[in-house]
């Protein structure tokens, strides 16, 4: 399978990339890792007239804690998340997620920015970002702005990134104190999209009560979903089995999965409940 013809450019600076995107208009696409886009182009689901390859632009790949945030550059590859010392030591949610995203070869190329900018509720990082309360940096020719992850996804393949703009970075509050995070997705085989996936971040007070909770769901809703009622059900509690089960039940009720080849709606709700329960417990055990 070969994509339809297109023009290719690999600018060396962000400004050049933004200028090219402005020039080419709405039929241009950004090439990051390319492991969602190129398969879609080969299947002719996408036929951009121009590809702007941003892999040669320096400074878009980093993982660092600074000023109370964890900052991740948009072009940071999954393999770099997997191997990062700070991620391995402190942000276990990424280690959990990266291991389950596609396969090692794809993770050598796939980027966190691409995973989110693709705007697909079946991708894993959106739920992780929801759990961590992330913000997305969007850059255009006049400057940059930060958008909350809760206002980032508009619909299937559409996000707050508008024509002529590039997703350049992500930031999320640095984990401090008694915090734990976790992610798991049920997948039929390596490389499959989630049957259901759940991301959890829990911070506890010194007295063992829950200070804050973030819960994001993968591929069980038209948009990546924040399980708001589940989060609220945990905050202030002592995180007993009963509290956790209630939160898991709310997540199963509040999502909106489809019957498809991965399972029935009822099965997926059950899986959301089971995985939410397990991931809350795992996050607590890591806090």
């Amino acid at each position, binding site marked *: 399978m070969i994509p339809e013809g297109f023009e290719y450019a690999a600018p060396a600076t962000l400004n050049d990339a933004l200028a090219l995107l402005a020039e080419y208009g709405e039929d241009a696409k950004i090439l990051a890792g390319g492991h969602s886009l190129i398969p879609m182009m080969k299947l002719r689901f996408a036929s951009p007239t121009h590809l702007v390859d941003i892999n040669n632009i320096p400074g878009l790949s980093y993982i660092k804690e600074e000023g109370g945030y964890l900052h991740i550059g948009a072009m940071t590859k999954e393999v770099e998340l997997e191997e990062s010392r700070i991620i391995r030591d402190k942000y276990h949610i990424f280690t959990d997620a990266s291991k389950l995203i596609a396969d090692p*070869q794809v993770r050598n190329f796939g980027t966190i920015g691409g995973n989110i900018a693709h705007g697909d509720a079946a991708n894993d990082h959106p739920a992780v970002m929801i759990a961590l309360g992330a913000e997305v940096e969007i850059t255009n020719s006049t400057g940059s702005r930060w958008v909350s992850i809760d206002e980032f996804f508009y619909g299937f393949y559409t996000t707050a990134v508008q024509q002529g703009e590039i997703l350049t970075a992500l930031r999320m509050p640095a984990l401090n104190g008694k915090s734990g995070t976790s992610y798991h997705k049920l997948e039929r085989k390596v*490389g499959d999209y989630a049957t259901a996936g759940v991301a959890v971040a829990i911070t506890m007070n010194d007295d063992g009560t829950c200070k804050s909770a973030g819960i994001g769901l993968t591929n069980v809703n038209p948009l990546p979903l924040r399980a708001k009622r589940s989060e609220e059900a945990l905050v202030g509690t002592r995180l007993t089995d009963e509290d956790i089960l209630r939160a898991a039940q709310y997540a199963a009720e509040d999502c909106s999965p489809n019957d498809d080849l991965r399972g029935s709606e009822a099965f997926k709700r059950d899986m959301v409940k089971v995985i939410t329960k397990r991931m809350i417990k795992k996050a607590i055990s890591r806090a």
Partner: protein
Amino acid sequence: MHEIKFKVNGVEQIASVESRLLLVHLIRENLSMTGTHIGCDTSSCGACTVLIDGKSAKACTILAVQANGKDITTVEGLATAEGLHPIQEGFKEAHALQCGFCTPGMMLRAVELLEKNPNPTEEEIRWGISGNLCRCTGYNNIVKAIQYAGAKIRGEEVPSTEPEFV
């Protein structure tokens, strides 16, 4: 058309490529190196795996033009004048192939895996080759071949490799 310069197995190459040409076609058709296979053509099976600057990559999902300035290794580049690469020796000794279609991709993936982790556990090997499918389902001997190559690379005595025929 784009003029690109790159290396394949240490040899400088220059090619004039259309934007939409895939790397796997550049290697197989323009360079006539057919050791790199096309299996699923959807980045699922790993038969087209090559190394790009040492990183294993599915050449069916990368544009040829993206290879500009890169150093590519294919299965043809594994053996040297001194003999087989340890991973090739491992595949031979452990009988890690039946039809052989997945073998070049499996070996190149294993090369990067052992480069990063010369002493992987069986679980790490199985996760490490999770992007490569063997439809003869000969995974047990493939795991043994990678363990053999790991021992060889570490300079240890190689494990005895009774192949499994099941």
